[in-house]
């Protein structure tokens, strides 16, 4: 079904099958960052959302617990087809990556005793650690000139990485403190 919105852009209203196939393709395409692909699929190619709606939904998904793209699939499915659409979307998104990752896991279990395979996986794991280091740098960079935010970062780092404290308890203490500081600074 196609409707014309206020800006004159054609917006498609996907059914459950289209939600499943759209997110199935997304799950297969996105390597190391599905979000730019998600925007292209939903805004440019399939025209389910306008650019503003996409940004708005992304804001919601970043606010909620869970992965952005997982939340996005659920929210988009829910928006168009209720809980059935949400189910179709998330199943489409994780079906193919789950199958692929289990195949890789089976290969790893089968051949891990082989010294060459062991070296290959050691190199792969070291590179994956490097990607996390770069991600940490990217999320920290905007905070570098904000001493209070940096203090929160340091406390969480020490609690989780050094002291290995349970995350739930740490979050119950630190999230309210950080939100309180953000509230005081915003006034």
């Amino acid at each position, binding site marked *: 079904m196609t409707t014309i919105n206020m800006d004159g852009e054609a917006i498609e209203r996907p059914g459950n099958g289209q939600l499943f196939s759209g997110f199935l393709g997304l799950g297969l395409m*996105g*390597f*190391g*960052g*599905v979000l730019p692909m998600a925007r292209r699929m939903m805004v440019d190619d399939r025209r389910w959302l306008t650019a503003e709606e996409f940004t*708005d939904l992304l804001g*919601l998904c*970043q*606010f909620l*617990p*869970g*992965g952005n*793209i*997982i*939340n996005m699939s*659920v*929210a988009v499915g*829910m928006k168009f087809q209720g809980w059935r659409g*949400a189910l179709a979307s998330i199943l489409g998104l*994780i079906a*193919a990556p789950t199958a692929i*990752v*289990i195949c*890789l*896991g089976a290969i790893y279990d089968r051949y891990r005793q082989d*010294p060459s395979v062991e*070296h*290959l*996986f*050691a*190199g*792969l*794991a*070291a*590179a*994956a*650690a*490097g*990607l*996390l*280091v*770069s*991600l*940490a740098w990217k999320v*920290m960079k905007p905070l570098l000139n*904000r001493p*209070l935010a*940096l203090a*929160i970062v*340091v406390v*969480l*780092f020490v609690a*989780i990485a050094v002291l*290995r404290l349970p*995350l*739930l308890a740490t*979050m119950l203490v630190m*999230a309210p403190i*950080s939100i309180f500081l953000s*509230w005081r600074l915003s006034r």
Partner: protein
Amino acid sequence: MSGTLIALAVIFTELSLIAFGGGNSVLPEMQRRVVEVQHWVTADEFSALFALAQAAPGPNMMIVPLIGWHVAGFSGLLVSSVAKFLPSSLIACFAVTLWDRFRDRPWRAVVQAGLVPVTAGLVAASAAVITVASVHSWLLAAITGVTGGLAAFTRAHPVALLGLGALVGLAFGGF
């Protein structure tokens, strides 16, 4: 067996509800529970499973079904996936129907801004925990350092960097 499934369900449900800022923020807690508390896999194996999940396409939390499968086969895969994805998805379903009401409230921006340093600290902790568990030699340290630098300061594709790391490990790991 059923005790293992219950433990999987409890761990991943809890992680699902506190994963603010996405999956990478709960990686240290996942490692702590799976490696240090349950002893299901070693720290080395956890790093390898994480790396496998990064090498696969799709969302970055594919380590969850992988751990479930590794620990308890197909039923473990189902239990861990449902536990990790269902609670946060129910919240997302609920929130999207209320979103119009709280989107423009000032407290939403305040809460979101307040969670940014928390997420940053958790992602930094993830990087440290995974690096310590993955790096056992100067060669592996060099791979982590070069990969991190290239990913941070160039537009190199993550999968190309993972492939490069694996090849360098394969070529020089025996020396």
